[in-house]
């Protein structure tokens, strides 16, 4: 079998990386077949938040004999962030799935992902794009100054009248001190 036969389409080569998309329901079976092609080394599994288009789980495998890698991707919608686990194919994938489960809030069906990285009782998934970085609100932003201004100009009267201040990216309106 070839990679194209396993995937059902010709994989794309992007910046020298062979990339193939896999249907979510077919995820574990396709990865098993790709492993049988010689891509026997599990490199990394992670996820990408595509916002309205859901989440993409990205897996990189390596063929130690042919010295070449392949990237496999699958997507799940945001409302139904579930992907089958790969722990039956690569036991080491469990570690990466636990990290992705915590940081992106993706459920890996068949893998009891337990607490790994975040503090006990932590609310939210920090690598989701809609996760607000509270430190960005609490910390003073160096870019708030306009050309020709110093820190002393900012602290003089932060709530006083004046021009609307530039807000750092990632801070929703209504957060932080009045601007």
């Amino acid at each position, binding site marked *: 079998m070839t990679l194209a036969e396993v995937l059902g389409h010709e994989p794309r080569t992007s910046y020298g990386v062979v990339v193939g998309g896999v249907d979510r329901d077919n995820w574990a079976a396709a990865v098993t077949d790709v492993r049988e092609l010689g891509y026997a080394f599990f490199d990394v599994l992670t996820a990408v938040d595509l916002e309205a288009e859901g989440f993409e789980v990205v897996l990189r495998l390596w063929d130690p004999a042919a010295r070449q890698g392949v990237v496999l991707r699958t997507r799940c919608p945001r409302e139904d962030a579930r992907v089958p686990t790969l722990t039956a194919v690569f036991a080491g994938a469990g570690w990466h799935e636990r990290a992705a489960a915590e940081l992106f809030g993706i459920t890996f069906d068949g893998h009891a992902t337990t607490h790994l990285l975040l503090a006990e009782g932590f609310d939210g998934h920090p690598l989701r794009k809609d996760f607000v970085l509270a430190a960005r609100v609490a910390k003073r932003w160096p870019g708030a100054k306009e050309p020709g*201004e110093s820190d002393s100009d900012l602290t003089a009267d932060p709530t006083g009248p004046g021009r609307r201040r530039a807000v750092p990216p990632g801070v929703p309106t209504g957060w932080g001190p009045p601007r």
Partner: protein
Amino acid sequence: MTGGSAYQRGLAALRAGAPAALPPRSRGIIALLEENCTVCMLCARECPDWCIEIDSHKQTVPARTERGRPRVLHVLDRFAIDFGLCMWCGICIEVCPFDALFWSPSFEHATTAATDLVHERAELRSWLAEVPAPPALDR
């Protein structure tokens, strides 16, 4: 050639006291040519980890001709990069519209105190010495 032999040759060169051979476009440290800086604040705003601090003031230049108008200039007071926060992404250098920032290949800047990683403008300027010439233009 194997990675191991390249490593051994690198080690031998270091033991002989030769400077490390760096690939082109090496990202060692960021240098500032403050004459080119117009205090537009773009680098400080684009920096993903907020490591660039800029202070400036306005200065009025009187009209140079009889019918001219006085002009307001922005004068740089402080330009500091905290290399303890910097992640070497180079966005500040990419975004600078007037080429005031450059990558210098010089990389041995470890300090014993985190506060010493904040490089003020004089220090940033001194890194200009090792900035390589730009690549030749396409013909």
